[in-house]
């Protein structure tokens, strides 16, 4: 790899509504391709992002927005999805969505701060 260029940020905001998740998936795939993840890793990340959205959307306050932030570098993509939620809201850790997301992302971090519930995921390229 050449001298690594500095990471780049992409941020998206859209209504906290399941209808937009397909667009988020498409954007995710495009960005992951830029990070030179393998086709399999792109597929994993698309599913993980899907599950993260499914876990957050039930908690989003009515009429609020989901913010999706990406931090991109060659061989690694970091994703954070955040929605405004009631204090103490927690994603359902008992279902398949959680299991699948945790299995497919390299790191998962849930946080609730200042009325915002967020899930952060990282996906790295594992082969050279």
């Amino acid at each position: 790899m050449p001298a690594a260029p500095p990471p780049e940020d992409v941020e998206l905001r859209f209504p906290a509504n399941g209808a937009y998740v397909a667009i988020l998936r498409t954007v995710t795939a495009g960005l992951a391709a830029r990070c030179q993840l393998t086709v399999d890793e792109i597929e994993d990340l698309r599913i993980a992002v899907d599950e993260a959205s499914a876990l957050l959307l039930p908690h989003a306050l009515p009429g609020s927005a989901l913010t999706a932030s990406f931090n991109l570098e060659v061989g690694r993509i970091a994703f954070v999805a955040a929605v405004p939620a009631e204090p103490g809201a927690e994603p359902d850790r008992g279902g398949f969505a959680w299991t699948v997301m945790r299995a497919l992302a390299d790191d998962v971090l849930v946080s609730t701060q200042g009325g915002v519930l967020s899930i952060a995921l990282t996906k790295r390229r594992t082969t050279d």
Partner: protein
Amino acid sequence: MSLHDAPGEDPAVLRARAAHLFVDLRELPEQDATRRQLRDRLVELHLPLVEYLARRFTGRNEPLPDLVQVGVIGLLKSIDRFDPDRGLEFSTYATPTILGEIKRHFRDAGWLLHVPRRAQELQASLTRARDELSQQLHRAPTVAELAARLTVPEDEVIEALDVARAYAGVPLEVLTEREGTPIDSPLLSEVDEALERVEQRAVLRPAIDALTDREREVLLLRFIVGKSQTEIADIIGVSQMQVSRLVARSLARLRTELAPAATRPARDRAPRGPAA
């Protein structure tokens, strides 16, 4: 595509039951006949997980039961390899293996290759539909109108327009940036201007389309999927030497396709040996 896809069974109950079964399974001697029953029970318990995962891949011309069947192979492998002492939840352990089998199924069925080609086919009919609809409507059609005309889902139209392009955008970057040493070709050498890169990509695409299926497959596996020559040899069932020759030949053909006759370099250097 949401939480509602989850089956009726409470996952916590499922997990507890699976944990018990794994402990029982471990305590039985290799030859014990009840091992098989326990294994079957574990498969049955996790079938909803396999179905949940398989459903993520529908809409690609593969019937769900086939995908589930392939997923179950991954489930069986996971059951045999799982070590309950490692403190990992079985479903977390099994998910990548099940998905791996499903993805391999698509790969073996040539899905990886068909993405560009399918997008290409769809693109041709898209262009036609776009022209026809523009004439009828006296304006450019919407994605919904195109989808209705072509009887494909809207997602697929968008995918054909965007994602296929994003995937196709990868090869050039990989080819030019790999290990910081551009491949020895004046046309594939490092490009600084983003604009030039866009132009090169546009030039590279038809060149890639002009390759044979086998050549394209080898380049995809080598430079996009990142497989080593040996791994590719296993996948397509030829010797590593043949893979090496195929990679060299495909790159050479790309160069020939790309170089206008007048500017084609006199010396045709061999491509850099892959790092495998």
